[in-house]
């Protein structure tokens, strides 16, 4: 390109970029939530939403507020970690898990599964239902982790708005299920409560892919549409945790548009399904 072309307007030294870095640093130092490794453009949109909700004209004002008013932070955290999941999102992924992974999981006497970044629980319950349908849930323990305690509470409750159930039902049907989703919940007062039996196999707990370490050895990890919010370095850290947590020849599923390509850990995995982003840890990796 022409060398005389003027540089891009914002090389990271623009006012907003500086304010954003300072705010994320302030959040980390005061509240120990680490968003510094998140992809800045998405964080910026969420911060703009928070500025509107909290009536702050600038990111600096938002920083002032959360540093001096501890009660303001949970609301900002909710906006920064806004739930975006649904049950059986990308049904083809669950179909691939049923067809390609479940037959191998059946050879294990007991199973541990990690749903990393579980938000309000949709993905964890989807996997619990799938494993139940495949006859595996009785010997399975699912760890579902997230950084926002409010979402973990909601996940633990396992109650979703009935307005979302039609989409969940359609997704579930297309995931290769032989049964209807309606067998697994009770509807009342505009809400659907999932059967308690699923909760007995799920442990919801606080864990950060940015700051915490591995807590268990697991056979399967599902972490979808979480890595897209991370910069390269944090993606690599998270994938490193997955590699460490997976048992010998364990399985990893990531989001349909996510990749291991930009991580140093890519060589440790074999691709099982390119379309559905399913991987297996290599022997000895």
């Amino acid at each position, binding site marked *: 390109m022409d060398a005389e072309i003027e540089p891009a307007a914002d090389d990271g030294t623009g006012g907003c970029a500086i304010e954003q870095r300072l705010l994320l640093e302030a959040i980390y130092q005061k509240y120990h939530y680490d968003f510094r490794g998140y992809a800045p453009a*998405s964080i910026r*949109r969420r911060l703009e939403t928070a500025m509107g909700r909290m009536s702050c004209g600038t990111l600096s004002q938002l920083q002032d507020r959360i540093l001096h008013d501890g009660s303001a932070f949970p609301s900002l955290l909710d906006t920064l970690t806004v739930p975006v999941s649904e049950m059986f999102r990308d049904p083809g992924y669950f179909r691939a898990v049923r067809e390609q992974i479940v037959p191998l999981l059946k050879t294990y006497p007991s199973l541990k599964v990690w749903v990393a970044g579980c938000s309000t629980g949709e993905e964890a319950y989807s996997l619990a239902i799938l494993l139940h349908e495949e006859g595996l849930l009785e010997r399975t323990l699912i760890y579902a982790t997230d950084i926002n305690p409010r979402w973990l509470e909601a996940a633990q409750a396992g109650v979703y708005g009935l307005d979302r159930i039609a989409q969940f039902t359609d997704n579930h049907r297309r995931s290769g299920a032989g049964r209807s989703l309606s067998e697994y919940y009770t509807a009342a007062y505009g809400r659907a409560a999932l059967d308690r039996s699923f909760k007995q196999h799920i442990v919801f707990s606080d864990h950060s892919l940015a700051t915490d370490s591995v807590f268990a050895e697991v056979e399967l990890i599902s972490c979808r549409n979480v890595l*897209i919010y991370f910069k390269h370095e944090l993606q690599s850290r998270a994938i490193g945790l997955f590699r460490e947590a997976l048992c010998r020849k364990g399985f990893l599923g990531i989001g349909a548009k996510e990749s291991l390509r930009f991580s140093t850990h890519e060589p440790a995995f074999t691709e099982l399904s390119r379309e559905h982003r399913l991987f297996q840890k290599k022997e000895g990796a």
Partner: protein
Amino acid sequence: MRPGTLPTPPHAIVIGGSAGALEALGALLPALPSGFPAPVFIVLHLPRDIPSMLAQIFAAKCALPVTEAEDKEPIRPGTIYFAPPDYHLLIEQGPYLALSVDDPVNLSRPSIDVLFESAADVYGRSLLGIILSGASADGAAGLAAVRSAGGFTIVQDPQSAPMPLMTTSALERCQADCVLPLDQIAALLRRIDR
């Protein structure tokens, strides 16, 4: 400024459209000559759940490489990137591509506003933004962001757009540098590397 010429060659181009924009892209993208210097990012509203064939459709017609955007991919010059269905496409400082599944904006995911606003942050005055035919007001705020960052803005002439709502909404929100029919937008793009 000479009519039909950009003040400076853009470092990047963002294009947004919905209904009627597929045909418009069919007129614009094949006009880009091989060796074209800038990356081109496109958001076209599509039904979710249907794997997009856009990259394959246009790869066959274009001199430039055409691909569906992948998360965290470094941006290559002279490449046409389509936002994947059901994901927002954002440009990050680097520059590289990023995707998100945040809520729809203007009922749309991908949203034109999300792409244009993030690209305006990164490319500023070196960005060219183009709004095409569409039946939604998505893109109006994005084009305004491109303009306020000093970028160059083009809107397809609403008279020539099969669905003019997107173009008229953009023009109500911000005064575009040019309002042109497709053949003149294509001619302008063709001159960029000269």
